[in-house]
């Protein structure tokens, strides 16, 4: 089985002075990174809902994404300034794009100097891979792609990796409820509103139970009731990889500026190097 994870997208996880929940979510994301390394993963297939697009499915084909991301909303905080240096598995990226095309969808191979890497990708990669040793294959989140298309994109990535003999991990970078607190708050004030919190926990209970069809069935209602991040299509992407048809381990759950965020792991969790 392919190891997989859901990790948060918000940069607060990298705050120097974090809320307790931000610190717990960050530690859990680091744990996922440790487990991916322990599983001997060569390349991580990554979907970030913050890399949202409208034409086809963009696959990052630049071999090195080095730069500094200054977030257009969080720039006044330490976590609004994020250096990144990501190595892309371009052989897999091209094979993935070919597999997307072959599946009757539309891949767009993206390689442009100065391409703005989204905050979610940078945050997740820094926590999962603090020493920039890993390799990534990244795809955008098409605003209009239905869950079946998201699943098919992930499945195409798995096929491409199989053909190349890559040992794969799959990670979706997405929040849960997205009811952002619309004012500047102190970290200690951070909380998820009760109705959204109820929904997040209901979804996570189904994830824990390994009931993927229940999660998929409640996805649309979750999207409306709790403004789920990108309609929680991240789960459909993970499902398409075949990795979430088993109980997920919820390593952390909590608020990030009013939104709900969780770290979930699907896979073996022995021989970790947790600290």
């Amino acid at each position, binding site marked *: 089985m392919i190891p997989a994870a859901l990790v948060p997208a918000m940069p607060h996880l990298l705050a120097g002075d974090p809320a307790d929940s931000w610190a717990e979510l960050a530690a859990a994301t680091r744990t996922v990174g440790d487990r991916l390394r322990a599983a001997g993963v060569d390349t991580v297939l990554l979907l970030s*809902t913050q890399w949202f697009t409208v034409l*086809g499915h963009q696959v990052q084909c630049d071999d090195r994404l080095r730069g500094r991301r200054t977030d*257009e909303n969080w720039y006044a905080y330490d976590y609004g300034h994020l250096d990144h240096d990501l190595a892309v598995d371009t052989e897999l990226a091209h094979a993935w794009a070919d597999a997307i095309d072959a599946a009757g969808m539309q891949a767009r191979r993206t390689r442009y100097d100065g391409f703005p890497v989204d905050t979610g990708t940078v945050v997740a990669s820094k926590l999962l891979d603090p020493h920039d040793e890993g390799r990534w294959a990244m795809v955008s989140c098409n605003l209009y792609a239905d869950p079946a298309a998201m699943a098919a994109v992930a499945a195409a990535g798995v096929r491409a990796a199989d053909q190349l003999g890559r040992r794969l991990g799959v990670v979706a970078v997405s929040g849960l409820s*997205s009811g952002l607190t*619309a004012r500047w708050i102190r970290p200690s004030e951070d909380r998820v509103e009760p109705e959204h919190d109820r929904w997040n926990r209901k979804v996570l209970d189904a994830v824990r139970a390994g009931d993927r069809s229940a999660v998929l069935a409640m996805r649309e209602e979750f999207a409306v009731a709790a403004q789920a991040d990108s309609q929680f299509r991240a789960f459909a992407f993970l499902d398409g990889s075949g990795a979430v048809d088993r109980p997920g381990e919820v390593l952390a759950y909590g608020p990030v500026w009013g939104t709900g965020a969780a770290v979930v792991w699907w896979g073996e969790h022995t021989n970790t190097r947790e600290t």
Partner: protein
Amino acid sequence: MARVFHATAGSGRSASRRAARTEPAPAAAPSTTSGSGGRGGIVAGYLAPHPPHLVYAENPPQNEPRSTGGWEVLRWGYEELRRRLRAHAPDVLVVHAPHWITMVGHHVNCVPNPRGVSVEPIFPHLFRYHYDFRTDVDLAEAIVEEGARAGLVTSAMREDGVRVDYATIGALHLANPDWDLPVVSLSANNNPYFYSDASLAEMETLGEATRKAIEKTGRRAVLLASNSLSHLHWDAEPDLPEDMGVERPFTHAQYAGDMELLRTIREGPTSRLKEAVPAHIEATSSETKAGSLTWLMAAMGWPAIAGDVLAYGTVIATGNAVVEWVPT
């Protein structure tokens, strides 16, 4: 439906073009009083849509990709806008655009000289623009202050590293490709995670705050509301992005919705838009849901005038109109 664009990985041709590109014209320093000698205040407002395709089609030296043209009628509308804008002799252009998305509050760009390359994440094959312009920092700060005084969450953005988005650049370039006027750029308060609509009531408050700041600083300002109209569009692109053989409205209903709004605009008065804009959003998923048009109308005080529609056309099926309002 048009077929999707299959991008060739890499951009060897663009690299050579980049080396040969012309530097943008130097921008004027912001004035501290009305430079025109005329009366201050808002002298004109425009609906100034920003599809990157229009900048791409113009082939300006600042943009790396090259085109063979396309979307001419909209671009001719912008040519007329430029002539009229010159005649208004503004001190400053104030733009509200929907793709500088700020999740907490309304931000105003207070960087004196924003410079950089804006690679558009959705249309990187069309828009890789080298920008270099001047901000009217005094007016920008005054808008932050007036917005806060009106009870809005506002922020003065002073970070060089924040990439200027394609909607802001697109509207400003198309309105004033010489970039010889100072600028104030406002963000769109929205939630990118859920793609929610802006609060139109808040946009009215922001518009009123913008007007107060302009009056307080004595500026002679032209305002640009950078929204498209009907907003359903193709999720695919022809091999030649400017292939006008496939350019048309998404549906007749989308087109009819735009025409209904434009009829209301052409008949006036602008107060009718208080009801017409939300109805148009409901009918066409209009990009005016980001609030730029409402901000513009509120800033001008919902004047009892008609708008002058300079052009209408579709871009990957979205409706776009260039419109002028001149308060009397």
